[in-house]
């Protein structure tokens, strides 16, 4: 796809013909766009556009939320004390590396400063604050609760601040902010409950779409581990969407290079063997190069970015688009004995063969246009890429190639013997029709016995290997990471409104916690109450005189003497005038990372989202990581509890994802069916004969059946991309069937046309065969369907349509 057109003939031709000028201009424009295009290779192509609000919340998190910036790190093996020491050393190194917004390893000793800020605002933040809190009774109760903790480990927190905070707001604050589920703590750091492993949670500064930044941060983790662990027999385990994305990018990039290089080399070698001429080779690659350029430019203009996977598919366009050049170069050779003069060979081709090629193009376009409407950006890009690429390649073949090689390619290389061999095969195949029919019948029987297993899920599309997913699940389980199967998403117009709505949802959830239906929940409003709530609390703070009078009464005969509580009165007084704190005020504290994860500001316009993680009791189904079916009764109970709250939704993660992919599979099946129908209509309209239409359709249908039967017999599940592959088989195969139909109608099949079909098929099989070897599931799925499908389409067209090879050619055999 990188072969440059030979500039000289183009220039000469361009001087003669306006269409050549147009072509040069279009190619230059496409080149400019392609060079300036934004190439990405993250996981975005595998994340569909989300139709429902629940799914939008989910995918937004996967795409750009804090979820995409979190790394889960495990230090495994070695001795327990060594792991603890390594965790502390790594955390210190990573905190000073500047790559991370937060580094959590369970060690809270570094939180002093944030603690001070929160303490200084405790009367705005503590959920216990209302007007009653500062009455004589309220003060007495608060003091009693605090004193009940003194002399126990739980009171240790209160001792240093007792005289400033006798009602224990510090404890209330800590209770509100700490999640109910936390990792096991040992030696002051987080450790696994089930494995010899210390744990860290990191939030990278780099956003989900800044893969270079994320790669840098991941590298910093590896360096910090190497420095901290030395050679004590410990291993680093690291997971997270960022890790997947960076690995996928490296993999996709490697694959594209490999596929493009191998594909180009194989096709060039084949063309050279067939034509034996450099000039033919250059002319032959021109439609391909035009097609790829046009495809990239169209995708870049249409989507703003070009995904690596699209380029990976683009390499297969080599196989499709080079067909046009092959048809032209072989078929335009002036037939022996005809009176057309030298330099006029293309005229016969344009008149005789172009309509067939054009019809093949239309059918291909009909097939690919189904993809354009796909909800998967990856597939939609592929559709646009293919449409633009095929149109450009066909137009280049039709209007530019006649100027460069008016008589096709010289009869050198293997063409002669190739023609004889294909003629022999074309004569032999129809005689084995019974065998072919038997094989197809067997395939139908196999499919009836064991229908193809269609499955739509993320795992089948994403290039993340199963081992990596297993490690991820195990780290998440250890960390009790906010990865519950179920969460509540609340939307609001701005920070204040969304927090207020989260508070309303929290009030409903509190009831479930009291009943034991929930262990707890973590809401952003627990970390940062809404401005309205904070203002209400500030308004509830009494004046110095009132507080003093009440406190004198409340402390009478109580455990704390009034005389020592002066600092308390001062603190309440100083907080009376404080403005409500906002997310920005918390930005430099360790709370920021937790808050960012749960309070999602819109990128540009759109609603703010608060995510409330629910902690289900261990007995309830759905509490375990990887359990995909949260208890229905719980779901219903939750729904009932939250009923009537504005823009408040329950998101059951696994169920939504499954629903999403199942939906896209169904949608893609519909689109494919519509595409197939359009192809049939097109063929019918052109052929104007039910017999001919049937003749063309039968080999195509038979090829699809054989491929499907192969997958069914191999017990391989089929996904959206296999469907794309089947569509491609129809698009590519219809060319062969149409040519055989054309030859049969004409009454004689010349060796050149047959040879061109064979070479065209070979290029397709080679390029899709290469794709089938890819480690990227999305690419290999298409390759594994199209490579055998295209070969079958040619063989079955030859066998079932049946042509009479021209006597003189057959005579050679």
């Amino acid at each position, binding site marked *: 796809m990188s072969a440059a057109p030979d500039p000289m003939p183009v220039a000469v031709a361009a001087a003669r013909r306006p269409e050549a000028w147009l072509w040069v201009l279009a190619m230059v424009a496409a080149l400019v766009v392609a060079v300036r295009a934004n190439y990405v290779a993250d996981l975005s192509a595998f994340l569909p556009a989300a139709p429902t609000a629940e799914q939008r919340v989910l995918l937004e998190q996967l795409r750009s939320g804090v979820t995409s910036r979190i790394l889960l790190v495990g230090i495994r093996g070695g001795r327990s004390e060594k792991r603890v020491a390594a965790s502390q050393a790594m955390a210190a190194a990573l905190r000073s590396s500047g790559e991370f917004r937060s580094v959590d390893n369970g060690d809270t000793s570094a939180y002093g400063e944030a603690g001070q800020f929160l303490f200084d605002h405790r009367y705005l933040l503590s959920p216990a604050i209302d007007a009653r809190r500062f009455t004589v009774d309220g003060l007495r109760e608060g003091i*009693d*609760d605090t*004193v*009940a903790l*003194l*002399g*126990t*480990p*739980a009171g*240790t927190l209160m*001792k240093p601040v*007792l005289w400033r905070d006798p009602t224990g707001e510090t404890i209330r604050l800590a*209770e509100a902010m*700490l999640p*109910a*589920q*936390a*990792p*096991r*703590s*040992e*030696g*002051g750091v987080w450790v696994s*409950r089930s494995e010899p492993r210390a744990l860290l949670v990191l939030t990278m500064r780099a956003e989900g779409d800044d893969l270079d930044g994320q790669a840098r941060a991941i590298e910093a983790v590896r360096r910090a581990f190497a420095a901290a662990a030395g050679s004590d027999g410990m291993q680093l385990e690291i997971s997270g969407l960022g890790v997947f994305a960076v690995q996928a990018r490296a993999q996709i990039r490697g694959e594209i290079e490999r596929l493009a290089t191998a594909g180009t080399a194989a096709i060039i070698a084949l063309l050279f063997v067939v034509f034996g001429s450099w000039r033919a080779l250059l002319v032959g690659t021109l439609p391909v190069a035009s097609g790829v350029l046009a495809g990239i430019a169209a995708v870049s203009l249409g989507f703003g970015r070009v995904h690596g996977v699209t380029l990976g598919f683009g390499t297969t366009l080599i196989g499709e688009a080079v067909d046009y050049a092959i048809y032209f170069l072989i078929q335009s050779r002036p037939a022996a004995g005809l009176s057309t003069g030298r330099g006029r060979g293309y005229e016969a081709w344009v008149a005789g063969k172009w309509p067939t090629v054009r019809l093949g193009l239309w059918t291909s376009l009909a097939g690919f246009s189904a993809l354009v409407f796909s909800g998967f950006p990856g597939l939609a890009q592929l559709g646009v890429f293919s449409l633009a690429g095929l149109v450009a390649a066909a137009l280049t073949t039709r209007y530019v190639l006649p100027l460069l090689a008016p008589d096709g390619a010289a009869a050198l290389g293997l063409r002669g013997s190739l023609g004889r061999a294909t003629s022999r095969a074309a004569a032999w195949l129809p005689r084995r029709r019974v065998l072919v029919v038997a094989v197809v019948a067997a395939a139908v029987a196999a499919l009836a016995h064991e229908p193809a297993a269609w499955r739509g899920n993320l795992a089948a599309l994403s290039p993340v290997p199963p081992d990596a997913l297993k490690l991820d699940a195990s780290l998440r389980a250890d960390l*009790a990471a906010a990865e519950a199967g179920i969460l509540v998403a609340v939307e609001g117009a701005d920070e204040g409104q969304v927090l207020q709505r989260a508070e309303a949802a929290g009030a409903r959830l509190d009831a479930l*916690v*009291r009943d034991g239906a929930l*262990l*707890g929940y973590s809401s952003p409003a627990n970390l940062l109450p809404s401005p309205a709530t904070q203002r209400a609390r500030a308004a509830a703070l009494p004046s110095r005189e009132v507080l003093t009078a009440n406190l004198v009464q409340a402390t009478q005969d109580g*455990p*704390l*003497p009034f005389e020592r509580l002066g600092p308390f009165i001062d603190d309440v007084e100083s907080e009376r005038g404080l403005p409500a704190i906002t997310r920005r005020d918390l930005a430099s504290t360790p709370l920021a990372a937790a808050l960012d994860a749960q309070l999602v500001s819109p990128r540009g316009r759109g609603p703010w989202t608060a995510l409330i993680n629910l902690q289900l009791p*261990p007995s309830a189904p759905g509490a375990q990581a990887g359990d995909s079916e949260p208890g229905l009764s719980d779901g219903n109970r939750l729904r009932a509890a939250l009923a009537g709250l504005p823009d408040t939704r329950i998101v059951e993660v696994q169920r939504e994802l499954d629903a999403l992919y199942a939906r896209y599979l169904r949608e893609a099946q519909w689109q494919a069916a519509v595409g197939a129908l359009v192809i049939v209509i097109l063929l019918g309209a052109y052929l104007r004969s039910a017999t001919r239409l049937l003749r063309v359709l039968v080999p195509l249908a038979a090829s699809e059946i054989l491929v499907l039967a192969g997958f069914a017999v191999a017990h391989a599940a089929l996904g959206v991309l296999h469907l794309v592959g089947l569509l491609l088989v129809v698009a590519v195969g219809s060319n062969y069937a149409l040519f055989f139909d054309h030859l049969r109608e004409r009454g004689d099949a010349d060796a050149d046309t047959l040879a061109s079909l064979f070479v065209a098929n070979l290029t397709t099989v080679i390029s899709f065969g290469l794709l089938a070897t890819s480690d990227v599931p999305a690419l290999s799925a298409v390759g594994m369907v199209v490579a055998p499908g295209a070969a079958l389409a040619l063989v079955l067209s030859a066998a079932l349509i049946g042509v009479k090879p021209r006597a003189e050619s057959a005579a050679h055999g």
Partner: protein
Amino acid sequence: MRTSEPRRPRSGGRAARLRRAAWRALLVAAATVPVAVAHAFDLDELMRILADVRSADATFIERRTVNQIGRTLESAGRLSYRAPDTFTRETLRPHRDKLAVSGNIVTMSQGDRSRTMELDAAPEAQVMIEAIRGTLTGNRSLLERHFEVRLEGPAESWLLELVPRDVRLRGQVAQLRVSGRQARIREVDVRMADGDHSEMLIEPAISPAP
């Protein structure tokens, strides 16, 4: 309520080992505690008789001395234990609150507030709870995982001394002393590192008919 048969030492070899251990314990006790020991009694034996108790209900009175406010605070309430791992402490006066532990889940309630957390995520709480639960269940390995364990005295008046193994925890809870008579726990004393100190006296309750 299920009650299991007390288990007894079976083999002569084991008895001999017990005797040897008992002699050692006696020598240690004689060297450290100037009290005559009537009967050889070791940790395994204590654990065994404690493990045989499948459920228990008791009342308690706790006196806690808090230096910071120069006072001794008194509280009282109920304790209950159900094998294998459920333990609750309900304070009735001066104010009601409740601490319930089951497995790794701790629930604390005060008035209409209730909070649940995982025990092993909060080592300070864990050390206090496992001291009592480990003793109640007669789980020697659980006790020894968290504490240096030392037993003194005869079965009629034993004293279990527990010192947290973790240095950081020792910085908060210096020592726990659990004492009792046979399978009955009579007192739990906690000495905090900062000098605060509490004694909890435990009396068996007439448990309601099962």
